């Protein structure tokens, strides 16, 4: 058997108890695996400490701990000692409760705001010449199609914005279009919310899929008008 035999038997017994005996106690239920893990960890650290205590070389390490925990010669630390001895089990209990009590909060869904675009939408440049006329036209399209959500002031506060979660992007904010290339906007405007990959939570986005309503040329003009109106410029890779 050797020195390893006893700890292993103990761990297995503990596991079997947690897995098969405890759930059969009336009013109980199968334990979540995270909890079984926590209990086993506690047991294991107990065993490790118990076993390592015998070696003489460990005396130096355990000496002060020993004096503190056994309360021998710890003098003024007595209060602290009781504090630790009471607090530690309570914390373990609290932690256990916290990790097993069912949460009352809705699931939080992290949403990546700027996920990677599909390959064919990287590095496209705006084919529409940047003339005052085209910018004007783009702003006109923006006012007609985008401003209900993104706002006449490009601030995301359009008259239709309030019910949408996530809210329509605020183009005046430096963390939206100022961080993005025109090519990226082209993708987002063409494909809309439903074109997002899973990390962008496409099922929640109200951003329309404009490719079914607007020709590409209009979209490029809108992009121009959008940057101009929001006083931002597209990100470029120098």
């Amino acid at each position, binding site marked *: 058997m050797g020195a390893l035999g006893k700890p292993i038997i103990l761990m297995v017994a503990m596991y079997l108890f947690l897995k098969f005996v405890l759930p059969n106690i009336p009013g109980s239920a199968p334990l979540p695996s995270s909890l079984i893990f926590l209990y086993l960890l506690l047991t294991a650290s107990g065993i490790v400490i118990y076993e390592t205590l015998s070696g003489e070389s460990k005396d130096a390490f355990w000496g002060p701990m020993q004096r503190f925990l056994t309360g021998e010669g710890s003098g003024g630390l007595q209060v602290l000692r009781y504090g630790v001895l009471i607090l530690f089990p309570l*914390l373990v209990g609290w932690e256990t409760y916290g990790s097993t009590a069912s949460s009352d909060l809705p699931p939080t869904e992290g949403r990546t705001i700027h996920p990677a675009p599909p390959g064919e939408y990287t590095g496209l440049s705006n084919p529409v010449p940047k003339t005052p006329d085209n910018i004007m036209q783009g702003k006109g399209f923006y006012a007609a199609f985008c401003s209900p*959500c993104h706002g006449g002031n490009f601030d995301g506060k359009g008259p239709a914005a309030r019910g*949408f979660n996530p809210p329509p992007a605020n183009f005046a904010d430096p963390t939206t279009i100022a961080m993005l290339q025109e090519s990226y906007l082209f993708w987002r405007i063409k494909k809309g919310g439903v074109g997002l990959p899973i990390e962008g939570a496409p099922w*929640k986005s109200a951003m329309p899929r404009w490719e079914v309503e607007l020709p590409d040329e209009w979209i490029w003009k809108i992009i121009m008008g959008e940057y101009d109106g929001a006083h931002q410029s597209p990100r470029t890779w120098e």
Partner: protein
Amino acid sequence: MERINLHEPGNKGEEQRTGSEWCRENEASMKPVNHIMKQVLRSGAAVITAMVIGSVPFSFAQESVAVRAALVTGGLPLDDPNAAAWSSAAPASFPMSPQVHWPNRIQEVTVKDVSVRALHDGKQVAFLLEYSDPTQDPDDAAAFEFMVGDKKAHFAHGQPMLQVEGGPVNIWFWKNKAGKAVDMSAKGFGTLKPQAHQDVNAKGAYSNGTWKVVFSRNLSTEHPEEDVQITPGQFISIAFAVWDGRKDAAGELVEKGSQKSVSSWWYFRADAPPDYSSYMYAAVAVALALGFQFVLIRKLKKGQ
């Protein structure tokens, strides 16, 4: 003051030692026990702090992101939008937008917020939808939408997503002049149709410029592919739509079909019956920790 200053250089020197130096000295002389003791206490403190931080609940989430159905015994107000029982259910309120997401759009709608309450008894669920509407019209209508199954569905009638495979939605539709609910399914625009199995009831009551509409259904049905299945304790995605049935000067309905007031996805949950098992788990953990301390201290005392 001065004493501290005198000691400082020494302390600093100690702290600047590298790890390997430590080991060597440790093996050789076993002297710096105090330092190790400090390390042990410090890491212990770190662990305890981590545990405390880890268990602090994040309680600043907005209440209105979820409709919660409290578990009640002794009957649900299935038919009665004005029942006293509703006052015991906490309302959650949700902002609405005119539907400008796909054609046909509408730029202005009457209803800008809805308030929703829910109750369940372990078998059935009842929702109370409330909103203000200055006039009662035959075409006033409202709907609930739910995701069905494990796949996410886009909030606009489960319209197809390009990179994610979506699921269907279940829509419970009530219209004033019909005086009942229609249980419907959709998976994409133009696919909305009443189901073969009608499982939902609805009843509306209008007074003082406010609609109160009760929707009810069994928590689970026999058609999980088309009906939302409500499992107490689980959060389910829910969305709302309202049509004000007013007519314009030409006698045409202003809000109809896709021209309506809509919400985004929010959450709904039917409360699970109280579950005390975590108290038991905590008690077991406390007992284990106490046992651990007991064994440890006993062993330490014996060892001396």
